[in-house]
């Protein structure tokens, strides 16, 4: 199994093949529906997004509450297709990898190929298990969105499967 460290620059992504399993360590940022809407609105107006998007990994996730003494609560992926409308804009801004669950639209697949990015899936409905890979978590933007805020997560060996690689090849069904 391949191990990767963030930032996920194009050279690290280029060798990944659809169907390959990866363990990712480093910094990833959560963003789901409402955060995407706000980031996209900021980008379209020429504004500054709340995180540096260049070579950034975006995780479609809204964690549950953090139990006392824990780093984070349950933190599995949410359905990626709801972010399809926003993904091309974020990819254009430099996002190099997305983590979620389920399939993507044809347009997103084309944009992934064009921008030499990657779409990973992770174990869906396994938030308690994935929480074990998170070393640090802090809200860095849109705290008013509650669980939909942007969290900066420091992860170690976060399990991923390449669903769409940088040449646009897809795992069957995605």
């Amino acid at each position: 199994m391949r191990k990767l460290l963030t930032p996920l620059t194009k050279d690290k992504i280029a060798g990944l093949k659809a169907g390959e399993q990866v363990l990712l360590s480093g910094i990833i940022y959560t963003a789901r529906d409402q955060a995407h809407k706000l980031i996209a609105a900021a980008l379209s107006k020429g504004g500054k997004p709340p995180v540096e998007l260049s070579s950034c990994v975006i995780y479609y996730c809204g964690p549950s509450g953090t139990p006392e003494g824990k780093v984070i609560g349950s933190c599995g992926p949410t359905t990626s297709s709801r972010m399809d409308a926003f993904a091309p804009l974020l990819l254009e801004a430099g996002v190099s990898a997305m983590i979620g669950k389920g399939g993507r639209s044809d347009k997103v697949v084309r944009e992934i190929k064009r921008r030499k990015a990657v779409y990973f899936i992770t174990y869906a409905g396994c938030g308690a298990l994935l929480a074990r890979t998170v070393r640090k978590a802090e809200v860095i933007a849109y705290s008013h969105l509650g669980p939909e805020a942007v969290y900066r997560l420091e992860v170690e060996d976060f399990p991923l499967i390449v669903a769409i690689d940088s040449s646009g090849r897809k795992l069957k069904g995605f």
Partner: protein
Amino acid sequence: MRKIPAAKISDTTAELCARANIILRKDVLVLLRSARKKEKNGLAAAALDAILENARAAAAERTPLCQDTGLPYVFLEIGQGVLITGCRLDAAVNNGVKRGYAFASCRQSVVSHPLSRSGSSYVPAVIHTDIVPGSKVRVTVFPKGFGSENKTGLKMFRPTESGDEIVNYVVSCSAEAGADACPPYIIGCGIGGGADTACLLAKKSLLRDVRKRSPDRLLRKMEKEILRKVNRLNIGPMGLGGGCTALAVNIEASPTHIAGLPAAVNISCHALRSASAVI
């Protein structure tokens, strides 16, 4: 009349909310283990291993099984010989949900207005009450994740159409859900009544033991047929392919009108969570 304080219903609801979100249902666990034994596809087997390990992690660490702790549904079967005393029943239930969800570190996934999307909270729960014979109250908490709820389907069939058309519709809804709703699925179906009845029956069918088929011969046949066809879709656990796209199909039916045949599909992800208690 047997008097039951609303506070007792509230406490029970709180306990059930924590249990449902943290401990995977035993019937679901049994089917997942059996699916893992049969799985030959490497990636799909790894996904099923992760699901089983997740259930152990959630129970051991008292963490919710999934970050989507759902829209909380609370079903109350209230014996007609019961008098509920104290505060309002809906207030008691919502108070219980709040306490149980907070105790289990659940997510505040409920927004108070569907369009403004303002204010996330644990409540209000969706509360369904049935008046039943007897002097007891059964409380069932069902946290329903929305990745799967978004794949709900309702179709008003013609009364001259057969079960085969419904079977094909349910299979097409499952194909449409693809990998989005966290397969392997448990597929709930409601047939009959009005449109609302069919939807509610589909949801309630998910509360039935997933190892048990319908006692009705026609429905049992359809359950088996749908499961067989869905498992030929090659979606597999988390969309990774193979023969395990659904673990079970539960159908509930109700009398309906001579002019209609409503059928609803309510899919559950593999983390089908619910808990019940009788007061």
